[in-house]
């Protein structure tokens, strides 16, 4: 197959796939097969691989949202007050239904992240970078940048929202 942009040959690559996401920043998804044009950089994905990337990102996003202290979340009533809309308008909003506002389930109730609600009010998109730091590009760089003791203190800390983007290396180091 040829590249649609520059008509050069496409190369099939299998391995770590670098992608980006509003919530996670730059992330690496392991074991992805994709087609790449080495000339212009266009990347094509099979449906299975695209789904794998999406599932990976969603799972990571949920993991990070769950680490945010419950105190930072609002009830539906509180969220509608912030947004200055009715509960009906809130429940019918397509973007809210599509999780443009970070939320968690507490039993049968859904709670919405305060900052995300406020951001949604001002921009129409409540998603923001959940991790303050980007993962270093390789393991050596990663180990040089962070000491394991720093990680354990970070994990024990109260401000769980400050956790770094979880990646394979991060988990490897954290549980070592």
């Amino acid at each position, binding site marked *: 197959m040829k590249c649609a942009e*520059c008509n050069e040959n496409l190369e099939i690559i299998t391995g770590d796939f670098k992608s980006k996401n509003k919530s996670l920043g730059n992330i690496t998804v392991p074991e992805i097969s994709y087609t790449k044009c080495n000339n212009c950089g266009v990347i094509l*994905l099979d449906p299975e691989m695209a789904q794998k990337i999406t599932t990976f990102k969603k799972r990571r996003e949920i993991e990070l949202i769950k680490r945010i202290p419950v105190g930072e979340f609002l009830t539906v009533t509180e969220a509608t007050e912030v947004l200055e809309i009715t509960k009906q308008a809130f429940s019918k909003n*397509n973007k809210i239904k599509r999780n443009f506002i970070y939320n968690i389930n507490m039993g049968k109730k859904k709670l919405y992240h305060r900052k995300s609600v406020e951001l949604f009010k001002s921009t129409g998109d409540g998603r923001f970078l959940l991790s303050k730091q980007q993962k270093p590009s390789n393991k050596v760089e990663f180990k040089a940048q962070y000491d394991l003791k720093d990680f354990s203190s970070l994990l024990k800390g109260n401000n769980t929202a400050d956790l770094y983007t979880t990646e394979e290396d991060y988990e490897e180091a954290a549980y070592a």
Partner: protein
Amino acid sequence: MADNFKNRLTNVNPKGHTQDKLKPYPLKRVKGLLKSGHYKINENALISAEEDFNWGPAEIMKCLLKLNSRHYVDDKKKNHYYKTEAHTQFPNTKMDYYKAEKIMEGFNIYTHFYISPSGDTLVISSFKEL
């Protein structure tokens, strides 16, 4: 009305010459390739679908299966087909453009795709908010 019809049959190429307007890929064929999994998504299309709608490939496919071939300019609320252009790189290949308002979950989408010269793969080049 007659002018509209005439405009649909001709097209102006970059040199200013009128030429026969390209026919779009039959949606039946496009949807057949989608259903059989013979399609690829450009990474940028996947990212913009996620950014604009929080959709993944499953939702992209579901949405594309809802497209109709009626001209968008005739009824922007109900019709989706926008235009067809010759592919810039592949001879005998064209790119179909669609605009669809409130097609799924109330979102308005803009997409363009083509079928690879070999004819066995649909390539979704773009998928974003209209």
